[in-house]
């Protein structure tokens, strides 16, 4: 057992395939290096925890499945996991960098890839700076070199001129080589691996020096020896990569320039070094081939030819070696064909000729072998043409070989097929006919199909469409058996025809057929543009299927819409179609009520995708709408609370509004979405969900998308449905910020907007009720917190006006009793409203008396409206009439109040109610003090004291007055000790007290002296009698009131006496 080894531990094996591009993978394959055991292997015997072991295996498995994003998440979690050892922690940045790069390996998005490379670079550079451990350094340096190499390739090979940058590519190739092999101040990958090999060597020596070896030691030794082999392979791999990097770097320069030559020379040296180090291994032989190719490129043809001929003579005809031989022959043929002198191709001798001819045609999909055959055919044809005097047998033999080779190649779909067919045409009529059959038939079919399609597009009738479908199907069926001049072109044309067929199916509403072709093209077409169009068509088709409401496929279609949209967003993240797909996904998520799905769409959205802001805003609006309308079932399905949902919506909306606000001009859809989002944001603020973090007034008036600003701008063309919620948000928003003047303007605009739609008017009713309630509550709160109330001058006037306007609208908008009731009561409260708009409150200060009267009048009018409605029951009638009595009283319209009271009491049931009689007596007493005439006053006092009977159309109305009321209830009041008796006792004493008081008031009114004295006597006698009947006079409170009243009466007597004297 080696103690040092035991302590060293950075975990056991973390078997991860390296991050390599296609080209490099090819190299690695040939190098014969097993890259499965990627991480350092000298650590194989160390203990590791279960979580480390499991996580390592999980990350490997996730990488194999292509779930690199999840692997990164797992690594991020492990960073926070305290149970993970330091050794494992140290590896995490490396693993994360690998996963980051791997996650974009298949991406066609240049920006996404370059960003991933940058992130990986940062992590790896940090790691190289901070870590000392050889194994980790070796891996990190290797990965960093790969990242630089891939970045260089990205700049060099970009199809788009926007991203192609050869100087940048050069820069990154230099960096790659510095990291792979140096020169560099820090650790290079090569140094690190060499150091690691030394470490392993030491361990191996230590084991071997042990006198006794346990079985465990033996196992460890074997593993170490295997590790050393792996590391040696890695050592060669790095050198090969360095050579490859120099070779690729040369392509950044003009051919034959000084830099170009230098780069190739560097590559040459490195290839040679690898070959010399391992001449018998496939990596060495690969380097030899590359050496030959490089020599040819440098114009050192003789040397290059020698090296390549040497490769062609390799003994093995199996696998990799055979491939190398084919490549070498191909290179040589290419060189020989490029020479002017026929003598120069003598190297293509009988041995090589037989090698090419014997190559099996069964594996002609291999481009190297096709190229080799094609070039060989051309070279032999050149010889045939250059030797008119050669013997017939020689010439026949040449022609026969050319025919065999050219036919082999012509039959394929490779890029060399056209050259081979051209060659066949030269061989004679029969071969020309053969080539013609191969080349022309597909083009003719394609052109025919194009004509059919053009005719249909000119005259798109159903029958023409059916014909076109049939024709296209026919062409596609035959196509596989036909060949074309340019096979690449053919493939493209076939894809186009398939796309057109899918489109025709879509137009014919044969959606299932359309979708099957669309999906095939989306996933398998090598033409990105077509693939994208097909994806969009597929998405549209699934949408159409999902809308058919067919139980057979509706659910599946819905999920397919989501899947296809997600696919588009991942594959073309920076294309407009991605934005469209995101919007479709959001619509779908809204349909499904899935809040999380919207979040996922937004997360999937690439940073720089066009229209990202619009998608954010759409998503945010949808999130808010879902928050508002979330059912309990939906709420149960989401893992987020409603509050968190709203906060997510706020974040998304704010980000989207921030982004879209930076645009210089907003118009069309962008403007519509921005306004809708601003409206949603206002609604959230009004609902109080964002704790006042938003400057609502500024948002409403924002120059580009503020609803108040945009909706009043006649030049902004917005869809009509925006106006109602927009103005509503303005109304609510301005109320919230206390700008009642603007709120009134919003209301006025809103009333115009909803005027033509009863449904919209009813929606507004709800809004108005909510606003009034809020305003009243706010007013009450202000009253409760008097200290915080501050005068707001005219604003309070606007506030009252607004209240009136809101209530007025509601009153006329609907005949619903419930709504009218609320209006009547609210108007009434506002009219009296000391309790609501207390005198200390600024609101009252701003409300003029006439306004209050207006409120009361409105209340009365509304009650009248309620009373005339047919469905009102008797009890409700009474209640509303009592309310009307109250309103009339507050208005000082006593006669009307009395009239209503008499109507109430014309109902016999009401007339028997002591409390209604109490109200009536009170009313008459008050009315008597505010008379329209003296006679009226006398009559009211009389009624208040002794009652009266009047015949109305509704029946005889009986008012008891205070005296009768007391008499009528005395029996119950003093009958037992029940609650009712208690209540009646209070009413009794109240009545007796009021009777005396009423007589006093009557006496104080402008009447003759005799009546006055009589009334005072009656009042005093009443009190005295009461004190004899019930000495306690109903308790202390009543007693005191009786005493005070008695004193007042006596004072009134004194006044009379004094006036007589």
């Amino acid at each position, binding site marked *: 057992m080696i103690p040092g080894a035991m302590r060293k531990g950075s975990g056991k094996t973390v078997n991860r395939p390296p991050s390599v591009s296609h080209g490099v993978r090819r190299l690695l394959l040939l190098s014969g290096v097993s890259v499965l055991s990627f991480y350092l292997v000298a650590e194989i015997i160390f203990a590791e*925890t279960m*979580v480390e072991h499991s996580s390592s295996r999980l990350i490997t498995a996730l990488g194999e499945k292509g779930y690199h994003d999840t692997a990164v998440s*797992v690594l991020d979690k492990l960073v926070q996991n305290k149970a993970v050892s330091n050794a494992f922690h140290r590896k995490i940045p490396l693993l994360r960098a690998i996963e980051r790069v791997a996650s974009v390996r298949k991406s066609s998005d240049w920006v996404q890839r370059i960003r991933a490379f940058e992130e990986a670079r940062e992590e790896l550079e940090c790691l190289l700076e901070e870590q000392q451990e050889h194994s980790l350094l070796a891996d990190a340096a290797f990965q960093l070199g790969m990242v630089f190499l891939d970045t260089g390739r990205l700049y060099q090979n970009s199809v788009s001129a926007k991203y192609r940058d050869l100087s940048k590519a050069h820069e990154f190739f230099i960096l790659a080589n510095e990291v792979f092999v140096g020169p560099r101040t820090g650790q290079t990958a090569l140094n690190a691996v060499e150091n690691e090999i030394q470490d392993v060597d030491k361990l191996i020596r230590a084991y071997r020096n042990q006198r006794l070896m346990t079985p465990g030691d033996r196992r460890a030794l074997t593993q170490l020896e295997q590790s050393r082999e792996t590391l040696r392979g890695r050592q060669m791999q790095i050198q090969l990569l360095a050579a490859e990097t120099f070779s690729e770097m040369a392509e950044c320069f003009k051919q034959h320039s000084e830099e170009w030559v230098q780069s190739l020379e560097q590559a040459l040296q490195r290839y040679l070094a690898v070959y010399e180090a391992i001449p018998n291994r496939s990596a060495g032989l690969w380097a030899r081939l590359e050496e030959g190719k490089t020599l040819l490129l440098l114009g050192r043809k003789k040397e290059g030819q020698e090296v390549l001929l040497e490769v062609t003579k390799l003994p093995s005809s199996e696998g990799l070696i055979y491939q190398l031989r084919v490549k070498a022959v191909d290179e040589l043929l290419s060189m020989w064909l490029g020479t002017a002198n026929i003598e120069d191709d003598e190297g293509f001798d009988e041995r090589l000729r037989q090698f090419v001819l014997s190559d099996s045609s069964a594996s002609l999909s291999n481009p190297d072998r096709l190229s080799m055959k094609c070039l060989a055919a051309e070279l032999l044809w050149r010889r045939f043409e250059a030797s008119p005097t050669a013997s017939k047998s020689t010439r026949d033999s040449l022609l026969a070989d050319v025919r065999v080779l050219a036919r082999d190649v012509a039959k394929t779909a490779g890029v060399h097929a056209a050259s081979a067919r051209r060659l066949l045409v030269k061989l004679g009529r029969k071969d020309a006919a053969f080539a013609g059959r191969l080349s022309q038939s597909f083009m003719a079919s394609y052109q025919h199909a194009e004509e059919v399609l053009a005719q249909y597009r000119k005259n798109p009738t159903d029958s023409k469409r059916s014909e076109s479908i049939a024709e296209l199907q026919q062409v596609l069926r035959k196509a596989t058996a036909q060949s074309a001049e340019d096979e690449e072109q053919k493939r493209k044309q076939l894809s186009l025809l398939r796309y057109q067929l899918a489109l025709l199916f879509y137009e014919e509403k044969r959606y299932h057929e359309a979708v099957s072709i669309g999906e095939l093209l989306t996933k398998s077409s090598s033409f990105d543009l077509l693939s994208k169009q097909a994806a969009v068509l597929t998405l549209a088709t699934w949408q159409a299927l999902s809308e058919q409401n067919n139980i057979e496929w509706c*659910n599946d279609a819905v999920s397919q819409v989501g899947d296809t949209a997600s696919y588009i967003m991942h594959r073309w993240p920076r294309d407009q179609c991605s934005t469209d797909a995101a919007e479709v996904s959001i619509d779908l998520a809204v349909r499904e009520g899935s809040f999380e*799905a919207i*979040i996922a769409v937004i997360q999937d959205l690439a940073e720089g995708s066009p229209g990202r802001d619009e998608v954010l805003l759409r998503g945010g609006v949808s999130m808010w709408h879902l928050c508002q309308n979330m059912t309990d079932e939906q709420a149960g399905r989401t*893992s987020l609370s409603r509050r968190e949902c709203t906060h997510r919506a706020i974040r998304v909306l704010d980000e989207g509004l921030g982004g879209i606000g930076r645009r210089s001009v907003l118009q069309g859809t962008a403007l519509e979405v921005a306004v809708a989002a601003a409206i949603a944001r206002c609604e959230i603020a009004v609902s109080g969900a964002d704790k006042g973090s938003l400057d609502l007034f500024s948002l409403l008036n924002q120059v580009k998308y503020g609803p108040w600003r945009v909706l009043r701008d006649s030049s902004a063309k917005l869809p009509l449905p925006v106006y109602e919620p927009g103005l509503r948000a303005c109304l609510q928003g301005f109320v919230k910020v206390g700008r009642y003047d603007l709120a009134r303007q919003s209301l006025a605009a809103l009333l115009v907007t909803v005027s033509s739609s009863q449904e919209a008017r009813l929606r507004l009713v709800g809004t108005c009720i909510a606003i009034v309630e809020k305003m009243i509550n706010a007013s009450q709160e202000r009253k409760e917190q008097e200290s915080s109330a501050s005068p707001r001058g005219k604003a309070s006037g606007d506030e009252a006006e607004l209240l009136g306007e809101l209530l007025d609208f509601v009153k006329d908008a609907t005949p619903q009793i419930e709504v009218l009731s609320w209006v009547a009561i609210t108007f009434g409260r506002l009219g009296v409203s000391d309790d609501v708009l207390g005198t200390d409150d600024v609101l009252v200060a701003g409300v003029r008396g006439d306004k209050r009267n207006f409120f009361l009048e409105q209340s009365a009018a509304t009650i009248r409206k309620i009373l005339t409605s047919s469905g009102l029951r008797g009890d409700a009638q009474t209640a509303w009439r009592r309310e009307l009595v109250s309103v009339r009283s507050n208005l000082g319209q006593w006669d009307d109040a009395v009239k209503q009271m008499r109507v109430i009491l014309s109902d016999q049931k009401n007339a028997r109610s002591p409390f209604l009689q109490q109200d009536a007596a009170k009313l008459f007493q008050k009315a008597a003090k505010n008379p329209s005439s003296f006679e009226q006053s006398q009559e009211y006092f009389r009624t208040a004291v002794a009652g009266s009977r009047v015949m109305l159309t509704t029946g005889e109305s009986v008012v008891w007055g205070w005296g009768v009321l007391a008499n009528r209830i005395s029996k119950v009041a003093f009958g037992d000790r029940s609650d009712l008796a208690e209540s009646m006792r209070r009413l009794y004493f109240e009545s007796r007290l009021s009777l005396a008081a009423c007589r006093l008031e009557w006496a104080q009114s402008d009447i003759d002296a005799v009546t006055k004295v009589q009334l005072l006597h009656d009042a005093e006698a009443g009190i005295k009698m009461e004190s004899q009947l019930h000495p306690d006079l109903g308790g202390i409170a009543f007693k005191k009131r009786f005493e005070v009243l008695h004193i007042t009466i006596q004072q009134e007597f004194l006044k009379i006496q004094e006036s007589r004297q």
Partner: protein
Amino acid sequence: MTVQCEVPEIWSNFALGHNGQGLQLMLVCLGCIAFQSMGAVYAADQVVTQAETLFGKIESVTPEAVRLIPRGSTGDPREIGVARVLMIQFNDEPQGLIEAKRLLVKKEFVSALLAVEEIDENQIKSSSVAIRGEYAYVQAVATGRIAIETAGEISFALSRVERVIDQFTRSIHYYELLELAGDLEVMLGRFDKAKSFYDKMKDGPPLMGLRARRLGGNVLAAEGRHLEAVVEFEKVQLEKFDLNGGEQEKMAACLAQAASFIALRRFDESVSLIRALLSRDLPEKIPVSSAEELLGKAYSLLGQSFIEMGQNQEALIAYLTVDLVYNTDSKFHAESLWQLIGLWADGGYPFRAAEARKKLVDTYPGSEAATRLNSTSE
């Protein structure tokens, strides 16, 4: 058991073949004769343990140990404790029975039962008691485990197991059969009887005692007495026990405790417990297959707890670990796939959800999770 050296045939081979092969055979045979004459053993009984396969002559078998005279040995027999024995094999055992036992070790119970039923019963009847015991053992265990997996024919399986326990009291499989009988009683809801079977295991070697206590905890948990079960599982884990297999029992007890915490809705405690377990070194003494099974259970329970706690990302990682790393137990694997369908879908990965769904339906079409999936789809 002694190996019959087919002397005449070999001699005839030698007589017929005049080449090196014949000579070699002759030397082997001469060697056999020499060993027999020395009174030593050249035999083909086998004892398969986790670490090795021992060849020789099985001298005796008890519920506690097998005594084997190793091939070529002249010394004392070697005793292999029951806890280490994976399988024993007698040299004259029918090939079908050997194959059935191999399937049993691989937990392919249905195949094992089919294999054992194909054996000619007459051949078994004429065999030794030991082989008859092995035959009955395979039949009983395969039937019992199938009954537990399918929750059917429990009583029948139990009677078969009890019969073997009664008939072959000296079997090396005695404790395994007691455990199985207890498990079947739990399935029948007869917890007292289950407990009595498990208690009998306490009479065996110390490891069996420890195992019996854990199984007793399982009975309490099955009865819904989770608080008592937690105490029992804790005791098992605190036991000072350094023998082979002890670590495995403690791990199993720890996971059973976590399961009880989940049943008690004490999810954070379940998570802490499993996390503490996972932070320990990878156990070297536990066979890889058993360790993988236990870790599969650990991550499955972890996923379950996280789901309950609403920590979907943590749950996703846990269930992915079951799906991609520790997927040997079909029950946990199917459950993980079921959970992953929802977790991927909620996380906005419809393709991955569909992939998990397909895997569930393709791999475990008849599982409870797949049935749940179908009913949800409907």
